[in-house]
């Protein structure tokens, strides 16, 4: 496999090779293969330092109610909003959010694909509900990325420095206090990678 998606550098070549395999295994275990565009890592056990850099793919929108359901106001004289679902996948998260906001007694879910919300402000609530965020994909993926980091970093390296943004994740870990040199190296790796991608795109 001669691609440049994942590259691990180290003074010890064989160690780097096997570490690349570990990163592939962990990322695929956590289903992060499609989330990270490029991965660079640097390991030097003599220092000791471990630097991990992952470039993230963009375009993970959060899921709103209007994405998978139609909303309308209930029949004449009824203070309610009707949510008719096109997809059943999000029902558990949706119900939890609705219960939080309106109270359990005001949510009727008698039919599988129809949820009735009883509220006196149904005229305004109907618009508000449409924009309600049900599933925060970004948050979940961030959690998974951090989990992957902790699995990849050598276990003894408990002193860590990190940057997590929408564009990239950067981790520096060691068992000694993090040196400025290492941070500088990580940042230059990041800049170079961002430049590479910018040029290729």
């Amino acid at each position: 496999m001669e691609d440049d998606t994942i590259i691990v550098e180290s003074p010890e070549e064989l160690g780097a090779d096997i570490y690349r395999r570990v990163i592939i295994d962990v990322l695929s275990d956590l289903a992060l293969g499609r989330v990270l565009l490029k991965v660079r890592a640097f390991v030097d056990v003599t220092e000791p330092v471990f630097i991990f850099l992952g470039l993230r793919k963009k375009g993970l929108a959060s899921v709103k109610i209007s994405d998978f359901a139609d909303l309308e106001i209930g029949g004449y004289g009824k203070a309610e909003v009707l949510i008719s679902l096109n997809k059943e996948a999000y029902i558990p998260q949706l119900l939890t959010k609705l219960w939080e906001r309106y109270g359990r007694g005001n949510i009727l879910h008698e039919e599988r694909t129809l949820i009735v919300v009883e509220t006196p402000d149904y005229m305004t609530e109907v618009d508000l509900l449409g924009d309600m965020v049900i599933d925060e994909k970004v948050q979940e993926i961030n959690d998974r990325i951090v989990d992957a980091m902790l699995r990849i970093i050598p276990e003894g390296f408990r002193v860590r420095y990190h940057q997590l943004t929408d564009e990239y994740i950067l981790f520096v870990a060691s068992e000694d206090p993090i040196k400025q040199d290492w941070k500088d190296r990580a940042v230059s790796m990041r800049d170079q990678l961002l430049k590479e991608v910018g040029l290729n795109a």
Partner: protein
Amino acid sequence: MLEPMMYEGGVHKHNLIEELVEDLGGYILQKNIMQTEVVIIMLVPIKDTGLVEDLTKKLLGELTRAPLSGTEIAVVAPTLAYHHLPHPDCDIAEFLRRKGAKTNMVGLGRGVGARTCQISAHERELINEHDVAVYVFGNFKHCITESKPKLFEGIDIPIVVTGAPEIDIADIPDADVYVGNLGRIAHRLRKGEEMFAMDQVVDVVGKIFDKEREEIGKDLLSVMPPRVKKEIEDQVPAINEVLSPLPITLRLRGLKVKLDFDEFHEQIGEVSFVEGVKLKDIADIRRSNMKNFILVDIKTKSETGFLI
């Protein structure tokens, strides 16, 4: 001379094998029944193996040599976190078990890191209760040769080290054998070279035991551990109620009895043999670091002056 063997076959009529081995003067070390299958690990007198082979054929079972039978091996990992488990530690342990060994996994409390790794006195004693320690290490040569040998301090038993790079054993202080091509692996070990490396671990451990047995041959134990096992089973009824997988675990120079030390060690010491000696006369009985069990270290002929 007894030959360690493993019988694998159906449950139907497997008691014939047990009876035959006992009639021949051999010992049943372990019996595992899994639904309709049974695996028996046993010691058979070497000149009578043919008889057991014939019966095995008749019962449509399979008989193989299990060179690691009657030994207890510590598989040592720097910690028990997901960086080491379940692969490759569990896979290596399983390969050793398949050849008849009893393995215990030892996860050190503070075994991680290069500068920071350390081993406690309790962990050291616990590892020393085994016949061999297999240390499972990672991917970097520098780490294995420079940092980790700290974890071997005070270990008196043979040490096998596994890791990824090719390293000359002379570069690892205090270790006896090094096996490469393993290292930190986050998937199940099933590729050819990984399986081969694990076979190699089994081989080197087997060789260490051959050497140890040769050493024992120069100054024999006063009584063979399997015989003590049998006598304890006959004379201490409480052992039959122990739910641990192997209530009496054999080691090369003794055994571990999985009963509470304070309650039972005197009873174990009083176990007697037809020759008229008691176990406490020919063995040291001490407390194990593992769950307060009883450790029996059998004295050699040069200490007691006789063999039974």
